[in-house]
């Protein structure tokens, strides 16, 4: 337990180290999620558009 709190304390620099890693994680995970969401949204949009455009031809 003490090892964990020593680790979290980061030699007294917890306020430097953890926010740095936190901000990095938030930005990179956020960018990855946003990019993947945009990809799947556009896939669905394209599929819908293609099926709409096929219909009048039949």
């Amino acid at each position, binding site marked *: 337990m003490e090892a964990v709190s020593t*680790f979290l304390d*980061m*030699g*007294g*620099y917890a306020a*430097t*180290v953890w*926010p*740095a*890693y936190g*901000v*990095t994680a938030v*930005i*990179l995970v956020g*960018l*990855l999620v946003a*990019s*993947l969401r*945009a*990809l799947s949204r*556009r*896939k669905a*949009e*394209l599929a819908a*558009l*293609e099926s*709409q*455009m096929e219909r009048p031809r039949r």
Partner: protein
Amino acid sequence: MPNFLHSLASPARFQRIANAVLPWVSVLAAVLLGVGIVWGLVFSPPDYQQGDTVRVMYIHVPAAWMATFCYAVMALLSASFLIWKHQLADLAARAASPIGACFTAIALITGALWGKPTWGTWWVWDARLTSVLVLFFLYLGHMALSAAFDDRERGGRAAAILACVGAINLPIIKYSVEWWNTLHQGASVFRMDGPTIDNSMLWPLLLTVLGFNMLFVVLLLVRIKSELLARRIEVLQRARASGRG
């Protein structure tokens, strides 16, 4: 080489290669980042002067390198779009700039957090910090310009010109710590006389650097695929609109 690049520039072939490569690069990125970050946070020693604040290095340095590397990639893509009119190069440059902006933001924020305990200040207007802030604004400008015109082609060209002109900032960033007096330290890894940083810190740093590189490839491929779809949607919508009219 030009033939190979031309064949890569075909969207269909790009899709095939991207789909084959993506799972492997994703796993590699996760493993490298996982091992590198745990090594940096838990097993690497604290610095004899900076104490545990040195652990910020394992994300600050790779983020800063990726910020400049991504800009170099974007400038090369923009140049090839302007010269050879490769549409895929335009899409790839559009895909790259938000990624570069994020890496630059990380470099700036983690740098400020690191600066407070070690330099005694979050920010100074010196050459290194200011030129990286300019890099961030160049990315934002690129994103804004490429979306600013109804005519996609015109927006792409304007943004590509900005990207090429802005490339002058890259050597300024690299040499700012030598040309001007600054709080920021000089290079300690890529030096003519070899790295001056101890192996116990160099190894985790190399792992996170490689991990950030792989993550960049993953993000870039996903975003280019997405840009390709967006363009296809646009073409279809225009075709449908003109069919009705």
